[in-house]
């Protein structure tokens, strides 16, 4: 016998009521935990995918769309960029490296990205098996894409035209899997990578010589044909600055002097998170309301329970209980309810985060997982425990003040 078993005995004695309070609290906690996990992982994911990319240059249009399509691979590209432009900017001394991105096809919803091996190097992704692409129609799959497609080394697959997934199959030019990337927690996990010329040949465009050689890109300005018309094109290219200071001139130069646009992922990311953040804040208010309702319910349960238990409290005093003991018992019951609600809520929240990508395909690109603690969850735990104590405090004070002699029949 101790305070804990005593408190549990009383909670068991009113199990339906206690269960209701726990579930109510759990819903609030689950909502907020899910939101915390979602926003933390979204931000983390988006930041990681944009890491080290100073600028994205592509066709004019929405800068956010340009970033979404070429960095995060979730939107349609804004248009196309002649290869000559890529080479021109690659040759600029303020530019350290460029990574071309050519889109257009998918395999079962996963994008096929024509690029250079520099793209893989940029994210420091390792090959789990095989090698990088060397000739046309060779592809390297990201870990998640390979898993979901069920493709292994040397398997063949047929690309579908268009990013929506409903396009016609390019049956004439199937791809062969030559390499599989190890999971890296970046956008590459969900891509199929290939050389630029694969994308071009699939779409009937004659590739320029040596376009797939990453070194060639930097000093190919003289040899490659200047862009325009039906020449080789990409959809965008990612730029890393050679020296600080470039961010002041380069984007302006691109935007004013060419038919292209330059967008900085960092700036667009901030805008994006601001937009997402507003929605998350609204949901957070909802979660807070749920918790508030639960706390009120815990308070009402303890308060009305106290009326029925006045005699029990008085009897405990006759058995030698101190006032403090009764008070602690009530607070402990509030704390137990809060803890159970917390545990259940965190389990539900993290469980939902873990299965959400399976249930909602649109969430898959986020790579949401419940197997981590989001920053802010510690504060959530502390907050819920604190309000659990708070809800119990008034009933506990009432228990402390109970006039036992009057309750037990001394006539006043």
């Amino acid at each position: 016998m101790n305070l804990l078993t005593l408190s549990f005995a009383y909670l068991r004695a009113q199990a339906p009521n206690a269960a209701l309070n726990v579930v109510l609290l759990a819903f609030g906690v689950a909502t907020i935990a899910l939101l915390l996990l979602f926003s933390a992982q979204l931000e983390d994911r988006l930041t990681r995918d944009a890491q080290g990319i100073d600028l994205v240059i592509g066709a004019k249009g929405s800068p956010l769309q340009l970033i979404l399509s070429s960095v995060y691979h979730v939107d349609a590209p804004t248009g196309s960029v002649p290869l000559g432009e890529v080479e021109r900017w690659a040759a600029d001394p303020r530019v350290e490296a460029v990574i071309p991105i050519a889109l257009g096809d998918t395999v079962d919803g996963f994008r096929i990205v024509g690029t250079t091996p520099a793209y893989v190097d940029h994210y420091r992704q390792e090959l789990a098996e095989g090698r990088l692409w060397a000739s046309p129609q060779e592809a390297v799959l990201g870990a998640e894409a390979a898993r979901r497609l069920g493709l292994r080394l040397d398997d063949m697959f047929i690309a579908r035209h268009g990013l929506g997934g409903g396009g016609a199959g390019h049956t004439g030019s199937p791809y062969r899997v030559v390499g599989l990337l190890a999971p890296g927690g970046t956008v590459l996990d969900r891509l199929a990578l290939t050389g630029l010329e694969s994308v071009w040949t699939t779409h009937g465009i004659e590739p320029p010589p040596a376009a797939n050689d990453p070194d060639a890109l930097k000093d190919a300005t003289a040899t490659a044909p200047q862009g325009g018309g039906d020449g080789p094109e990409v959809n965008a290219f990612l730029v890393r600055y050679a020296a600080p200071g470039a961010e002041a001139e380069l984007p302006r130069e691109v935007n004013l002097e060419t038919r292209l646009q330059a967008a900085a992922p960092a700036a667009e990311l901030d805008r994006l998170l601001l937009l997402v953040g507003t929605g998350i804040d609204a949901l957070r208010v909802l979660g807070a309301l749920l918790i508030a309702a639960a706390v009120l319910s815990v308070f009402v349960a303890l308060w009305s329970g106290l009326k029925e238990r006045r005699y029990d409290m008085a009897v405990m005093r006759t058995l030698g209980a101190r006032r403090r003991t009764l008070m602690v018992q009530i607070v402990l019951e509030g704390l137990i309810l809060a803890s159970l609600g917390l545990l259940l809520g965190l389990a539900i929240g993290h469980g939902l985060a873990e299965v959400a990508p399976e249930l909602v395909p649109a969430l898959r690109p986020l790579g949401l997982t419940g197997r981590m603690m989001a920053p802010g969850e510690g504060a959530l735990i502390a907050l819920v425990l604190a309000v659990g104590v708070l809800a119990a405090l008034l009933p506990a004070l009432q228990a402390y003040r109970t006039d036992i002699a009057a309750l037990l029949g001394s006539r006043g």
Partner: protein
Amino acid sequence: MDQDIEAVDRPAAELAVVGPDAAIGAAGRVPVLTFAGLEHRFGTRPILRIDFFEVPAGEHGVLMGPSGTGKTTLLHLIAGLLRPSEGRIAIEGRWLDTMRRGELDRFRGRMVGIVLQRLHLLPALTVLGNLRLARWLAGLPADPAAIRHLLDALGIRHLARARPAELSQGEAQRVAIARALVNRPRLILADEPTSALDDRNAALVIELLMGQAAASDATLIVATHDARIVDRFGHRLLLGRRP
């Protein structure tokens, strides 16, 4: 009257020596219960006035009087649940007013066992749980063997896992008695233990209480208006409407 003054005016130093431990050792000398110049009022309304009364160790006492004469209040005063307006109460030579609040709670838990008129078993706990709680609240070790022995002695061992709601009135009363005895108190207080019972059961309950008190060498104090049982007590205190 001499006795009265002596009790009230006993120097504090001497009283301090007669702690609960000392009192048990000198059970023959120190009275188990002493009232001295006791008065209690609710607001300005006087309830009780007892100049002097004491119950020697090893004997039992009864507080008699019709309803509304303050019997229950007096029991609460003895248990230290109420502080008297005037005068003092000592249990085994320890004056209750010399104890701090927490100390008094602990003292009550260990020295006094109370059988309330309406029993008031805790419904959330089993019979066993009720007894364990009493030991724990008094800060005593669990002692399951003693609890089993007590349940046997009262013939309610088979009810150990039952909840109070499942008990008959008679069974509940036995459990309440067991709970009052489980800490081996020096003083057992019972509030109207027989008033709701027929003659046969009233006699049984008094036998039970006296037998258990004797078994644990404790003093039984019963508050009652039940004329059937008062003869059983050597020390009687009659409470009236106008003390």
